[in-house]
């Protein structure tokens, strides 16, 4: 997914503590799972839950405050999506770069071998 430059305000902090607390709640984990598949406005998230709107808004606020959820505005709707960056582990970074170097070194090989 395209990465937006984050809305970095003093209240948003993906510190380990905040992320951990955000993930500790099963409703919030369920929200993240839903948002990992598609971007949704609040109404649609609520349709998949037996949660009151105020409770949902509170959970979303907690997730946004540690960057696990990002939003974008499209007209009158606000779409929410999962931002998995705070969850990324060393293993995920390295897996990403394993693929990255495999791909690019392949191109280097092809390029060097093709050059007259």
């Amino acid at each position, binding site marked *: 997914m*395209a*990465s937006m430059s984050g809305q970095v305000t003093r209240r948003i*902090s*993906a*510190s*380990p503590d905040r*992320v*951990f607390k955000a*993930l*500790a709640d*099963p409703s919030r*984990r*369920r929200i*993240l*799972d*839903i948002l*990992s*598949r598609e971007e949704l406005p609040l109404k649609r998230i609520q349709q998949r839950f037996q949660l009151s709107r105020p409770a949902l808004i509170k959970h979303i606020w907690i997730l946004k405050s540690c*960057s696990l959820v990002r939003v974008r505005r499209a007209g009158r709707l606000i779409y929410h999506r999962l931002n998995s*960056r*705070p*969850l*990324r*582990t*060393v*293993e995920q*970074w*390295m897996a990403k*770069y*394993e693929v990255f*170097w*495999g791909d*690019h*070194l*392949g*191109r*280097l*090989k*092809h*390029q*060097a*071998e093709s*050059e007259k």
Partner: protein
Amino acid sequence: MKSIRKELIINAPVAKVWAHLIDPARIAGWLMPNTFDPRPGKAFRMDCGTEGTIEGVVREIVPLKKLVYSWTSKHLKIETLVTVTLKPEKGKTRLILVHSGWEALPPSEEGLGAPFDQGWNACLKRLGEQVSLEGTP
């Protein structure tokens, strides 16, 4: 020590492969647009699309043999190290790339300089797995 290691044989002489490692125009062909300057201490940028801009500094150059530079970005935050070595092998070139320094990664990317903590990462990983397991099929 955590590092990524890639090794391959390129069917071209070392001098040719070396040119592709240090010439910005050639680097743009197999890696990305860049401002690479193959001199020790020189900083450069690489335009990485989804990962944003990579910033690096050339640490060591041994012509035709070894190239070492630092590698970091706004998302990655820590400074990792890329080491490329070339060895001639019967008219071909054996290239080894090692990307190291991953131990320095904090538990959360936007963590406030928190030290790397194995226990924390394991926890997050378990929670991450839990998120995917709890989803409706």
